[in-house]
């Protein structure tokens, strides 16, 4: 009788340790939110990074050093821009409205996305109904060779779908989509024209 109890205890301990091992092998996973309706932002003009600072600044209230504004590195210096507003909706629609450009200017919205999708089947190991995070992707909307074109009055009005931007993987337009980076780029120079921001 005593031996049976010992065996039963040993079995229970074994099961408990198996549960612990199984649990620790699974990484902590945060639950997905229930709503996230996207971005609706105005754009500030993109400027070259200032690092390191190259001039001392004497204006009260400002940092004591900085750089003369420059747009010769990764940022565009060929286009004019009065304003730009960008919207990315939860249905995957990307809408751009901008003014102050010149007929012939071509723009694209560049997004860097990190997508996590539930209900995924994996191989090696074979698992079903898993939440999987995919490698970050940077996409242009619309994809080259298309672009949003400036009208004769300098306005740029365009929309496209996230499905088309992430082709050939339309599955990346669904799920928990983190928008890691957003910018407006000159399609002809591939340089950044504007990024989300405010003008005060």
């Amino acid at each position, binding site marked *: 009788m005593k031996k049976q109890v010992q065996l039963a205890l040993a079995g229970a301990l074994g099961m408990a340790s198996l549960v612990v091992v199984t649990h620790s092998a699974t990484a*902590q*996973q*945060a*639950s997905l*939110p229930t*709503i*996230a*309706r*996207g*971005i609706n932002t*105005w*754009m*500030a003009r993109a*400027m070259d*990074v*200032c*690092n*390191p600072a190259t*001039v001392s*600044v*004497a*204006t009260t209230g*400002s*940092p004591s050093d*900085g*750089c*003369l*504004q420059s*747009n010769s*590195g990764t940022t565009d*210096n060929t286009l*004019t821009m009065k*304003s730009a507003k960008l919207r990315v*909706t939860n*249905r*995957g629609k990307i809408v751009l409205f901008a003014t102050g450009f010149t007929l012939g200017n071509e723009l694209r919205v560049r997004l860097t996305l990190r997508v*996590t999708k539930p209900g*995924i*089947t*994996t*191989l090696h190991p074979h698992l079903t109904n*898993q939440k*999987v*995070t*995919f*490698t*970050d992707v940077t996409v242009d909307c619309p994809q080259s060779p298309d672009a949003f074109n400036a009208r004769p009055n300098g306005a740029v009005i365009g929309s496209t779908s996230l499905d088309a931007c992430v082709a050939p993987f339309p*599955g*990346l*337009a*669904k799920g*928990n*989509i*983190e*928008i890691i980076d957003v910018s407006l780029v000159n399609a002809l120079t591939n340089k950044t024209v504007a990024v*989300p*921001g*405010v*003008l*005060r």
Partner: protein
Amino acid sequence: MMTRTLGGIGALVAGVIGLGVAVQPAGAAVLLPTKALNYTTWLARAMDPCSPATVSVATTNSPAAGCLQSNTTTDDSVSPGATMKFARLAVRKSGNHHGRVSVFGSGFYAGQRMKVQLIIRVTKPGQTTLHPHQVGKSVTFQDVSIACGNSSITGCFTANLNGAVAGSMSLEDCLTQNGEPIGLATGNIQILDSALVNCDTGKVIATPGILNF
């Protein structure tokens, strides 16, 4: 006489153009836009990056490889990690002329503390520089990372008993809270990065995004 006058005008125009070229800074600079009122975004849950991919994926229309969702470097849902149903953040031009940073969300633990983290790059016109001494110059300052929260003690926003959070503070106050000059609250303010961060774990809870099923 007519020829000489035209020649003189031509030389003058050429000179003015030449002067214009000469005074243009070495790194060509563009004009600031005329309007950029606000930055508003809903937040998606932040996940650990997947690099390199560790599992093969068999679901159609998805990339062939990825990683099982992980929240090790990002915040997870086990207390002191945060739960979240939704959250929205905004940076506005207005707000009694001081700029405004606000957050609104629900589904958090009661008492959950969080802050809005922003990385901004500010360019201001009309600056006076020394070494070299110049006036009326447009200056870009080094990127700054600030964390905003309306509690003067913790520097965080706090969820109420229902798990909802609704708070705001001026951009100037946030800069001051982070030891940055308030002059960075005006100008062409690029928002390079934004996130909601758990004050208890220091990890990112959520970033701008969409939830689309």
